[in-house]
Protein backbone atom coordinates (compact mmCIF):
# COMPACT_ATOMS: atom_id res chain seq x y z
CA UNK A 1 0.00 0.00 0.00
CA UNK A 2 2.78 2.35 0.98
CA UNK A 3 4.60 1.42 -2.21
CA UNK A 4 1.50 2.23 -4.31
CA UNK A 5 1.12 5.61 -2.58
CA UNK A 6 4.79 6.34 -3.15
CA UNK A 7 4.51 5.52 -6.86
CA UNK A 8 1.43 7.73 -7.19
CA UNK A 9 3.22 10.55 -5.38
CA UNK A 10 6.24 10.30 -7.64
CA UNK A 11 4.10 10.21 -10.78
CA UNK A 12 2.04 13.21 -9.66
CA UNK A 13 5.16 15.14 -8.73
CA UNK A 14 6.73 14.39 -12.09
CA UNK A 15 3.63 15.55 -13.93
CA UNK A 16 3.21 18.73 -11.92
CA UNK A 17 6.83 19.80 -11.80
CA UNK A 18 6.96 21.40 -15.25
CA UNK A 19 3.70 23.19 -14.50
CA UNK A 20 4.58 24.45 -11.05
CA UNK A 21 8.30 25.01 -11.38
CA UNK A 22 8.10 28.27 -13.34
CA UNK A 23 5.62 29.68 -10.82
CA UNK A 24 7.84 28.59 -7.92
CA UNK A 25 10.94 30.06 -9.50
CA UNK A 26 9.08 33.23 -10.34
CA UNK A 27 8.43 33.67 -6.67
CA UNK A 28 12.15 33.61 -5.83
CA UNK A 29 12.62 37.25 -6.60
CA UNK A 30 15.91 38.83 -5.66
CA UNK A 31 14.06 41.92 -4.49
CA UNK A 32 12.80 41.95 -0.91
CA UNK A 33 10.00 44.36 -1.76
CA UNK A 34 6.61 42.86 -2.45
CA UNK A 35 6.12 43.81 -6.05
CA UNK A 36 2.95 42.78 -7.81
CA UNK A 37 3.61 39.59 -9.77
CA UNK A 38 3.04 40.18 -13.49
CA UNK A 39 0.30 38.01 -14.87
CA UNK A 40 0.74 35.84 -17.90
CA UNK A 41 -0.93 36.92 -21.06
CA UNK A 42 -3.86 34.69 -21.74
CA UNK A 43 -4.10 33.27 -25.17
CA UNK A 44 -6.93 34.27 -27.40
CA UNK A 45 -9.37 31.47 -28.01
CA UNK A 46 -9.04 29.40 -31.15
CA UNK A 47 -11.76 30.04 -33.71
CA UNK A 48 -14.94 28.05 -33.24
CA UNK A 49 -16.20 25.70 -35.91
CA UNK A 50 -18.60 28.34 -37.16
CA UNK A 51 -15.93 30.99 -37.56
CA UNK A 52 -13.97 31.50 -40.74
CA UNK A 53 -10.74 29.51 -40.77
CA UNK A 54 -7.84 29.87 -43.09
CA UNK A 55 -6.73 26.85 -45.06
CA UNK A 56 -3.70 26.08 -42.92
CA UNK A 57 -3.52 22.70 -41.18
CA UNK A 58 -4.82 22.76 -37.61
CA UNK A 59 -4.42 20.75 -34.45
CA UNK A 60 -7.43 19.03 -32.83
CA UNK A 61 -7.82 22.03 -30.47
CA UNK A 62 -8.12 24.42 -33.40
CA UNK A 63 -4.70 26.04 -33.35
CA UNK A 64 -2.62 26.35 -36.54
CA UNK A 65 -0.44 23.25 -36.69
CA UNK A 66 3.23 24.20 -36.51
CA UNK A 67 4.37 20.62 -36.14
CA UNK A 68 6.91 19.33 -38.62
CA UNK A 69 10.33 19.86 -40.12
CA UNK A 70 11.36 23.33 -41.28
CA UNK A 71 14.41 25.16 -42.60
CA UNK A 72 15.10 28.88 -42.44
CA UNK A 73 17.98 28.98 -44.90
CA UNK A 74 18.00 32.20 -46.87
CA UNK A 75 20.17 34.03 -49.37
CA UNK A 76 18.59 37.27 -48.18
CA UNK A 77 20.90 39.51 -46.14
CA UNK A 78 19.89 40.58 -42.67
CA UNK A 79 20.15 44.28 -43.53
CA UNK A 80 18.97 45.93 -46.73
CA UNK A 81 21.66 46.81 -49.27
CA UNK A 82 21.75 50.44 -50.36
CA UNK A 83 20.67 49.63 -53.91
CA UNK A 84 17.26 48.51 -52.64
CA UNK A 85 16.77 51.52 -50.40
CA UNK A 86 13.08 52.22 -49.84
CA UNK A 87 11.95 48.85 -51.18
CA UNK A 88 10.99 46.02 -48.84
CA UNK A 89 10.19 43.66 -51.70
CA UNK A 90 12.06 42.66 -54.83
CA UNK A 91 10.42 42.20 -58.20
CA UNK A 92 9.89 38.59 -59.28
CA UNK A 93 12.77 38.97 -61.71
CA UNK A 94 15.11 40.34 -59.05
CA UNK A 95 14.08 37.61 -56.63
CA UNK A 96 14.93 34.91 -59.16
CA UNK A 97 18.23 36.60 -59.99
CA UNK A 98 19.21 36.71 -56.34
CA UNK A 99 18.23 33.10 -55.87
CA UNK A 100 20.07 31.87 -58.96
CA UNK A 101 23.12 33.93 -58.10
CA UNK A 102 23.04 32.52 -54.58
CA UNK A 103 22.98 29.00 -55.96
CA UNK A 104 25.85 29.77 -58.28
CA UNK A 105 27.87 31.56 -55.63
CA UNK A 106 27.49 28.75 -53.14
CA UNK A 107 28.34 26.24 -55.83
CA UNK A 108 31.44 28.06 -56.94
CA UNK A 109 32.42 29.61 -53.65
CA UNK A 110 36.05 29.84 -54.62
CA UNK A 111 35.20 32.28 -57.40
CA UNK A 112 33.47 34.92 -55.33
CA UNK A 113 36.32 36.51 -53.51
CA UNK A 114 35.26 39.55 -51.59
CA UNK A 115 31.61 38.72 -51.16
CA UNK A 116 31.44 39.25 -47.48
CA UNK A 117 27.87 38.22 -46.98
CA UNK A 118 28.36 34.52 -47.35
CA UNK A 119 30.54 34.17 -44.32
CA UNK A 120 33.46 31.91 -43.77
CA UNK A 121 31.95 28.90 -45.50
CA UNK A 122 32.20 30.73 -48.79
CA UNK A 123 35.26 32.77 -48.04
CA UNK A 124 37.94 31.59 -50.46
CA UNK A 125 40.66 32.95 -48.21
CA UNK A 126 39.73 30.73 -45.30
CA UNK A 127 41.16 27.30 -44.76
CA UNK A 128 37.98 25.48 -45.41
CA UNK A 129 36.49 22.50 -47.10
CA UNK A 130 34.40 22.73 -50.22
CA UNK A 131 30.90 22.70 -48.81
CA UNK A 132 29.53 21.21 -52.01
CA UNK A 133 31.72 18.15 -51.62
CA UNK A 134 30.07 17.49 -48.28
CA UNK A 135 26.46 18.32 -49.21
CA UNK A 136 26.36 21.37 -46.98
CA UNK A 137 25.43 24.10 -49.45
CA UNK A 138 22.06 25.80 -49.11
CA UNK A 139 21.00 24.49 -52.52
CA UNK A 140 21.55 20.98 -51.23
CA UNK A 141 19.40 21.62 -48.17
CA UNK A 142 16.08 23.11 -49.18
CA UNK A 143 16.70 26.85 -49.59
CA UNK A 144 13.91 28.73 -51.35
CA UNK A 145 13.58 32.21 -52.87
CA UNK A 146 12.60 35.08 -50.58
CA UNK A 147 10.82 38.11 -52.06
CA UNK A 148 12.16 40.50 -49.44
CA UNK A 149 15.26 42.64 -50.01
CA UNK A 150 16.33 42.20 -46.38
CA UNK A 151 15.32 40.15 -43.40
CA UNK A 152 15.02 43.29 -41.27
CA UNK A 153 11.60 44.84 -41.91
CA UNK A 154 11.39 47.34 -39.08
CA UNK A 155 12.67 50.07 -39.06
CA UNK A 156 11.28 50.46 -42.57
CA UNK A 157 14.75 51.17 -43.99
CA UNK A 158 15.66 47.54 -43.32
CA UNK A 159 18.69 48.46 -41.24
CA UNK A 160 19.43 47.61 -37.61
CA UNK A 161 19.20 50.84 -35.55
CA UNK A 162 22.41 52.38 -34.20
CA UNK A 163 23.92 51.09 -30.97
CA UNK A 164 23.68 53.17 -27.85
CA UNK A 165 26.87 54.66 -26.40
CA UNK A 166 26.62 52.14 -23.56
CA UNK A 167 26.52 49.21 -25.99
CA UNK A 168 29.49 50.50 -27.97
CA UNK A 169 31.56 50.56 -24.79
CA UNK A 170 30.48 47.09 -23.69
CA UNK A 171 33.24 44.45 -23.57
CA UNK A 172 32.91 41.47 -25.89
CA UNK A 173 34.57 39.07 -23.52
CA UNK A 174 32.40 37.85 -20.70
CA UNK A 175 32.78 35.14 -18.09
CA UNK A 176 35.89 33.71 -19.69
CA UNK A 177 34.23 33.32 -23.08
CA UNK A 178 35.11 35.39 -26.06
CA UNK A 179 31.74 36.60 -26.97
CA UNK A 180 30.68 37.06 -30.31
CA UNK A 181 30.27 39.89 -32.45
CA UNK A 182 27.93 38.32 -34.93
CA UNK A 183 24.64 36.49 -35.05
CA UNK A 184 25.60 33.26 -33.36
CA UNK A 185 26.58 32.12 -29.93
CA UNK A 186 30.11 31.37 -30.90
CA UNK A 187 31.91 32.02 -34.02
CA UNK A 188 35.12 31.45 -35.71
CA UNK A 189 37.92 31.82 -33.27
CA UNK A 190 41.38 32.39 -34.64
CA UNK A 191 43.53 31.45 -31.68
CA UNK A 192 42.71 29.67 -28.42
CA UNK A 193 45.14 29.76 -25.52
CA UNK A 194 42.88 27.87 -23.11
CA UNK A 195 39.73 25.78 -23.59
CA UNK A 196 37.50 28.68 -22.51
CA UNK A 197 38.73 30.60 -25.55
CA UNK A 198 37.05 28.04 -27.77
CA UNK A 199 33.72 29.70 -27.09
CA UNK A 200 30.17 28.45 -26.90
CA UNK A 201 29.69 27.61 -30.53
CA UNK A 202 32.88 25.67 -31.12
CA UNK A 203 32.33 23.61 -28.00
CA UNK A 204 28.65 23.11 -28.93
CA UNK A 205 27.50 24.40 -25.55
CA UNK A 206 25.09 26.90 -27.03
CA UNK A 207 24.80 27.11 -30.75
CA UNK A 208 22.04 28.40 -32.96
CA UNK A 209 18.78 27.46 -31.29
CA UNK A 210 17.96 31.11 -30.70
CA UNK A 211 16.18 33.19 -29.92
CA UNK A 212 16.20 34.51 -32.50
CA UNK A 213 16.21 31.59 -34.92
CA UNK A 214 18.59 32.68 -37.66
CA UNK A 215 19.85 30.74 -40.66
CA UNK A 216 22.60 28.40 -39.50
CA UNK A 217 25.67 27.65 -41.57
CA UNK A 218 24.46 24.12 -42.09
CA UNK A 219 21.84 21.80 -40.60
CA UNK A 220 19.63 24.87 -40.46
CA UNK A 221 16.63 22.65 -39.81
CA UNK A 222 14.08 22.54 -37.04
CA UNK A 223 11.57 20.07 -35.68
CA UNK A 224 8.57 21.70 -34.03
CA UNK A 225 6.40 19.61 -31.71
CA UNK A 226 3.19 21.18 -30.47
CA UNK A 227 0.70 20.42 -27.71
CA UNK A 228 -1.88 22.64 -25.99
CA UNK A 229 0.47 23.38 -23.07
CA UNK A 230 3.90 23.38 -24.66
CA UNK A 231 5.66 23.93 -27.96
CA UNK A 232 9.13 22.45 -28.37
CA UNK A 233 11.63 23.48 -31.04
CA UNK A 234 14.65 21.30 -31.75
CA UNK A 235 17.38 22.81 -33.89
CA UNK A 236 19.32 20.21 -35.83
CA UNK A 237 22.64 22.00 -35.53
CA UNK A 238 23.60 21.45 -31.92
CA UNK A 239 20.52 19.29 -31.22
CA UNK A 240 19.35 21.94 -28.79
CA UNK A 241 15.69 21.91 -27.73
CA UNK A 242 13.77 24.95 -26.54
CA UNK A 243 10.65 24.11 -24.56
CA UNK A 244 8.12 26.93 -24.63
CA UNK A 245 5.33 26.82 -22.03
CA UNK A 246 2.03 28.27 -23.20
CA UNK A 247 0.05 30.54 -20.85
CA UNK A 248 2.40 29.44 -18.08
CA UNK A 249 2.60 32.53 -15.89
CA UNK A 250 5.31 35.11 -15.44
CA UNK A 251 8.96 34.66 -16.27
CA UNK A 252 11.35 33.09 -13.80
CA UNK A 253 13.21 35.27 -11.33
CA UNK A 254 15.51 37.92 -12.76
CA UNK A 255 18.33 36.10 -10.99
CA UNK A 256 18.02 33.07 -13.25
CA UNK A 257 19.78 33.18 -16.61
CA UNK A 258 19.64 30.46 -19.26
CA UNK A 259 21.49 29.78 -22.50
CA UNK A 260 18.36 30.40 -24.55
CA UNK A 261 16.60 32.67 -22.09
CA UNK A 262 13.26 32.01 -20.46
CA UNK A 263 10.36 31.61 -22.87
CA UNK A 264 6.68 32.28 -22.32
CA UNK A 265 4.23 31.62 -25.14
CA UNK A 266 0.66 32.61 -25.83
CA UNK A 267 -1.61 32.69 -28.85
CA UNK A 268 -2.76 35.90 -30.46
CA UNK A 269 -5.33 34.68 -32.96
CA UNK A 270 -3.48 32.32 -35.29
CA UNK A 271 -0.03 33.51 -34.23
CA UNK A 272 2.08 31.87 -31.54
CA UNK A 273 3.82 34.68 -29.67
CA UNK A 274 6.88 33.81 -27.57
CA UNK A 275 8.45 36.35 -25.23
CA UNK A 276 12.02 35.59 -24.19
CA UNK A 277 13.99 37.19 -21.35
CA UNK A 278 16.57 36.07 -18.73
CA UNK A 279 19.51 35.46 -21.05
CA UNK A 280 22.98 34.44 -19.95
CA UNK A 281 25.61 37.16 -20.29
CA UNK A 282 27.85 34.89 -22.38
CA UNK A 283 25.08 34.03 -24.80
CA UNK A 284 23.18 37.21 -25.36
CA UNK A 285 22.26 38.00 -28.92
CA UNK A 286 24.58 40.54 -30.53
CA UNK A 287 26.22 41.34 -27.23
CA UNK A 288 23.01 42.90 -25.89
CA UNK A 289 22.41 43.53 -22.20
CA UNK A 290 21.08 40.31 -20.62
CA UNK A 291 19.24 42.33 -17.97
CA UNK A 292 17.24 44.40 -20.43
CA UNK A 293 17.03 42.29 -23.59
CA UNK A 294 13.63 41.01 -24.67
CA UNK A 295 13.18 39.03 -27.87
CA UNK A 296 9.63 38.43 -29.01
CA UNK A 297 9.03 35.76 -31.63
CA UNK A 298 5.90 35.35 -33.73
CA UNK A 299 5.17 32.10 -35.56
CA UNK A 300 2.36 32.29 -38.12
CA UNK A 301 1.68 29.40 -40.44
CA UNK A 302 0.69 31.16 -43.64
CA UNK A 303 0.29 28.14 -45.90
CA UNK A 304 0.94 24.43 -46.14
CA UNK A 305 4.65 24.87 -46.75
CA UNK A 306 5.54 28.05 -44.86
CA UNK A 307 5.68 29.51 -41.37
CA UNK A 308 6.30 33.24 -41.25
CA UNK A 309 8.78 33.74 -38.42
CA UNK A 310 9.09 37.28 -37.12
CA UNK A 311 11.26 38.37 -34.24
CA UNK A 312 11.49 41.72 -32.48
CA UNK A 313 14.59 42.69 -30.55
CA UNK A 314 13.98 45.21 -27.81
CA UNK A 315 16.83 46.36 -25.59
CA UNK A 316 16.89 50.09 -24.88
CA UNK A 317 20.37 49.88 -23.36
CA UNK A 318 21.79 48.40 -26.58
CA UNK A 319 19.84 49.80 -29.55
CA UNK A 320 18.32 53.24 -29.94
CA UNK A 321 14.99 51.62 -30.83
CA UNK A 322 13.50 48.13 -31.22
CA UNK A 323 13.89 46.34 -34.53
CA UNK A 324 12.23 43.37 -36.24
CA UNK A 325 13.05 40.84 -38.94
CA UNK A 326 11.02 38.26 -40.85
CA UNK A 327 12.51 34.94 -41.96
CA UNK A 328 10.34 32.44 -43.84
CA UNK A 329 10.53 28.89 -42.52
CA UNK A 330 10.05 26.40 -45.35
CA UNK A 331 8.81 22.88 -44.92
CA UNK A 332 11.43 20.18 -45.52
CA UNK A 333 11.42 16.43 -45.28
CA UNK A 334 12.50 14.85 -42.03
CA UNK A 335 13.93 13.36 -40.07
CA UNK A 336 16.64 15.47 -38.57
CA UNK A 337 19.61 13.75 -37.01
CA UNK A 338 21.30 14.04 -33.68
CA UNK A 339 24.23 16.44 -33.65
CA UNK A 340 26.34 14.66 -31.08
CA UNK A 341 29.24 17.06 -30.79
CA UNK A 342 30.70 15.89 -27.45
CA UNK A 343 31.99 19.41 -26.77
CA UNK A 344 33.96 19.13 -29.98
CA UNK A 345 36.76 17.19 -28.35
CA UNK A 346 38.52 16.48 -31.66
CA UNK A 347 38.69 20.12 -32.60
CA UNK A 348 39.60 21.18 -29.08
CA UNK A 349 42.78 19.13 -29.35
CA UNK A 350 43.58 20.32 -32.86
CA UNK A 351 42.86 24.00 -32.16
CA UNK A 352 44.76 24.17 -28.87
CA UNK A 353 47.68 22.24 -30.36
CA UNK A 354 47.56 24.64 -33.29
CA UNK A 355 47.92 27.56 -30.91
CA UNK A 356 50.95 25.95 -29.28
CA UNK A 357 52.50 25.35 -32.70
CA UNK A 358 51.88 28.98 -33.64
CA UNK A 359 53.46 30.13 -30.37
CA UNK A 360 56.52 27.97 -31.02
CA UNK A 361 56.83 29.24 -34.58
CA UNK A 362 56.66 32.81 -33.33
CA UNK A 363 59.44 32.15 -30.80
CA UNK A 364 61.68 30.57 -33.41
CA UNK A 365 61.18 33.38 -35.92
CA UNK A 366 64.47 35.26 -36.33
CA UNK A 367 64.43 38.81 -35.09
CA UNK A 368 63.70 41.31 -37.78
CA UNK A 369 61.98 38.77 -40.03
CA UNK A 370 58.85 39.93 -41.72
CA UNK A 371 55.63 38.86 -40.14
CA UNK A 372 54.07 35.99 -42.04
CA UNK A 373 50.39 35.57 -41.34
CA UNK A 374 49.55 32.27 -39.74
CA UNK A 375 46.30 32.30 -41.56
CA UNK A 376 44.28 34.57 -43.72
CA UNK A 377 41.86 35.31 -40.97
Amino acid at each position, binding site marked *: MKRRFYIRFVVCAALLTPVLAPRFLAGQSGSPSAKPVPQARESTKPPSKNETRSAVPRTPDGRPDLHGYWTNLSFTPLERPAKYQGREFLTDKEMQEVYKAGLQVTYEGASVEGIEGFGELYNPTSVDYDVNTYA*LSPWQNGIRPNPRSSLVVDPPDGRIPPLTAEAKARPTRRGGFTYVEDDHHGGGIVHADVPADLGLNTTCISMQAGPPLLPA*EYNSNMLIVQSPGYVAIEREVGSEVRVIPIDAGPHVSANIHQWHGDARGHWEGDTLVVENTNFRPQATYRNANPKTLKITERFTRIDKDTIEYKFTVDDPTTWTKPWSAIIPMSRVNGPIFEYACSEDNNDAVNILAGARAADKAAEEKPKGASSVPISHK
Partner: protein
Amino acid sequence: MRAALVMAVLVVTLGLLAGTMPMQAHHAFAATFDTNKPVVVHCMITKVELINPHSWFWCDEKAADGTTTNWGFEGGCPNSLIRHGVTKATIPVGTELIIQGYQSKAFEHKGVGVNMTFPDGRKFLFGGSAPGAEGEVATPTKDDIAPATKNDDSSKK
Protein backbone atom coordinates in the same frame (compact mmCIF):
# COMPACT_ATOMS: atom_id res chain seq x y z
CA MET B 1 28.30 32.95 -73.44
CA ARG B 2 26.95 30.96 -70.53
CA ALA B 3 29.83 32.02 -68.33
CA ALA B 4 29.26 35.64 -69.31
CA LEU B 5 25.59 35.37 -68.41
CA VAL B 6 26.41 33.88 -65.05
CA MET B 7 28.93 36.61 -64.38
CA ALA B 8 26.41 39.28 -65.38
CA VAL B 9 23.88 37.90 -62.90
CA LEU B 10 26.55 37.84 -60.21
CA VAL B 11 27.50 41.43 -60.87
CA VAL B 12 23.88 42.59 -60.91
CA THR B 13 23.19 40.98 -57.57
CA LEU B 14 26.52 41.77 -55.96
CA GLY B 15 25.03 44.63 -53.99
CA LEU B 16 22.44 42.40 -52.41
CA LEU B 17 24.78 39.56 -51.70
CA ALA B 18 27.33 41.86 -50.15
CA GLY B 19 25.01 42.49 -47.23
CA THR B 20 25.50 40.77 -43.93
CA MET B 21 24.12 37.31 -44.30
CA PRO B 22 23.81 35.60 -40.94
CA MET B 23 25.62 32.42 -41.84
CA GLN B 24 28.86 31.28 -40.39
CA ALA B 25 31.09 28.25 -40.06
CA HIS B 26 30.96 26.21 -36.91
CA HIS B 27 34.52 26.85 -35.91
CA ALA B 28 37.52 28.69 -37.21
CA PHE B 29 39.44 26.55 -39.61
CA ALA B 30 42.14 29.17 -39.41
CA ALA B 31 42.76 28.24 -35.78
CA THR B 32 43.42 24.63 -36.77
CA PHE B 33 44.80 24.56 -40.28
CA ASP B 34 47.43 26.56 -42.10
CA THR B 35 46.86 28.14 -45.49
CA ASN B 36 50.61 28.27 -45.91
CA LYS B 37 50.70 24.48 -45.98
CA PRO B 38 48.60 23.22 -48.90
CA VAL B 39 48.80 19.48 -49.50
CA VAL B 40 47.68 17.07 -52.20
CA VAL B 41 47.66 13.48 -51.02
CA HIS B 42 47.05 10.48 -53.26
CA CYS B 43 45.90 7.76 -50.93
CA MET B 44 43.59 4.84 -50.23
CA ILE B 45 40.79 5.14 -47.75
CA THR B 46 41.31 3.13 -44.57
CA LYS B 47 38.56 4.49 -42.33
CA VAL B 48 35.58 6.85 -42.48
CA GLU B 49 34.26 8.46 -39.28
CA LEU B 50 30.86 10.14 -39.52
CA ILE B 51 31.06 12.12 -36.29
CA ASN B 52 29.94 15.62 -35.35
CA PRO B 53 30.74 18.33 -35.84
CA HIS B 54 33.09 17.13 -38.58
CA SER B 55 33.56 13.85 -40.36
CA TRP B 56 37.07 12.45 -40.64
CA PHE B 57 38.53 10.50 -43.53
CA TRP B 58 41.63 8.43 -42.92
CA CYS B 59 43.77 7.13 -45.74
CA ASP B 60 47.15 5.55 -46.45
CA GLU B 61 49.66 7.28 -48.68
CA LYS B 62 52.31 5.01 -50.16
CA ALA B 63 55.73 6.50 -50.82
CA ALA B 64 58.04 5.41 -53.62
CA ASP B 65 60.19 3.52 -51.12
CA GLY B 66 57.20 1.44 -50.06
CA THR B 67 56.61 3.12 -46.71
CA THR B 68 53.05 4.02 -45.79
CA THR B 69 51.81 7.14 -44.02
CA ASN B 70 48.33 7.31 -42.53
CA TRP B 71 46.66 10.73 -43.02
CA GLY B 72 43.53 12.10 -41.39
CA PHE B 73 41.40 14.70 -43.17
CA GLU B 74 38.58 16.66 -41.62
CA GLY B 75 35.45 16.94 -43.74
CA GLY B 76 31.92 18.25 -43.45
CA CYS B 77 29.38 17.58 -40.73
CA PRO B 78 27.79 14.16 -41.18
CA ASN B 79 24.13 15.15 -40.74
CA SER B 80 23.78 16.46 -44.27
CA LEU B 81 25.79 13.55 -45.60
CA ILE B 82 23.45 11.08 -43.92
CA ARG B 83 20.43 12.99 -45.23
CA HIS B 84 21.84 12.59 -48.71
CA GLY B 85 22.14 8.85 -48.25
CA VAL B 86 25.82 8.78 -47.40
CA THR B 87 26.95 6.03 -45.04
CA LYS B 88 30.31 4.91 -43.76
CA ALA B 89 30.33 2.52 -46.71
CA THR B 90 29.80 5.19 -49.37
CA ILE B 91 33.54 5.53 -49.73
CA PRO B 92 34.57 1.91 -49.15
CA VAL B 93 37.85 1.08 -47.57
CA GLY B 94 40.35 0.81 -50.38
CA THR B 95 38.90 3.58 -52.52
CA GLU B 96 41.68 5.50 -54.21
CA LEU B 97 41.27 9.26 -53.93
CA ILE B 98 43.30 12.40 -54.38
CA ILE B 99 42.56 14.70 -51.44
CA GLN B 100 43.42 18.35 -51.71
CA GLY B 101 43.58 20.36 -48.51
CA TYR B 102 45.66 22.19 -45.95
CA GLN B 103 47.82 20.73 -43.25
CA SER B 104 47.11 21.07 -39.56
CA LYS B 105 49.19 23.65 -37.73
CA ALA B 106 50.21 21.11 -35.14
CA PHE B 107 50.07 17.66 -36.68
CA GLU B 108 52.05 16.76 -39.75
CA HIS B 109 49.67 14.15 -41.09
CA LYS B 110 46.35 15.75 -40.33
CA GLY B 111 44.59 18.28 -42.47
CA VAL B 112 41.33 19.64 -43.77
CA GLY B 113 40.10 17.89 -46.89
CA VAL B 114 38.96 20.74 -49.12
CA ASN B 115 37.87 18.43 -51.91
CA MET B 116 38.35 14.97 -53.29
CA THR B 117 38.81 13.63 -56.80
CA PHE B 118 39.20 10.19 -58.26
CA PRO B 119 42.51 9.47 -59.96
CA ASP B 120 40.84 10.00 -63.36
CA GLY B 121 39.97 13.57 -62.42
CA ARG B 122 36.29 13.21 -61.63
CA LYS B 123 35.12 15.32 -58.69
CA PHE B 124 33.73 13.51 -55.70
CA LEU B 125 30.51 15.24 -54.61
CA PHE B 126 28.38 13.67 -51.91
CA GLY B 127 25.30 15.77 -52.56
CA GLY B 128 25.06 16.07 -56.33
CA SER B 129 25.52 19.15 -58.46
CA ALA B 130 23.79 22.50 -58.19
CA PRO B 131 20.78 23.21 -60.35
CA GLY B 132 22.14 24.81 -63.48
CA ALA B 133 25.75 24.44 -62.44
CA GLU B 134 28.20 22.54 -64.52
CA GLY B 135 29.42 20.24 -61.82
CA GLU B 136 30.35 16.67 -62.29
CA VAL B 137 28.72 14.27 -59.92
CA ALA B 138 30.46 11.18 -58.79
CA THR B 139 30.10 8.64 -56.07
CA PRO B 140 32.29 5.55 -55.95
CA THR B 141 31.46 2.58 -58.11
CA LYS B 142 32.92 -0.88 -57.84
CA ASP B 143 35.51 0.12 -60.40
CA ASP B 144 36.68 2.96 -58.19
CA ILE B 145 37.78 0.59 -55.47
CA ALA B 146 41.32 -0.57 -55.96
CA PRO B 147 41.17 -4.32 -56.76
CA ALA B 148 44.17 -5.09 -54.60
CA THR B 149 42.56 -3.61 -51.53
CA LYS B 150 39.01 -4.86 -51.85
CA ASN B 151 39.56 -7.26 -48.99
CA ASP B 152 41.60 -4.84 -46.99
CA ASP B 153 41.49 -4.89 -43.21
CA SER B 154 38.77 -2.40 -42.43
CA SER B 155 39.79 -2.16 -38.81
CA LYS B 156 43.01 -0.48 -39.78
CA LYS B 157 42.94 3.18 -39.00
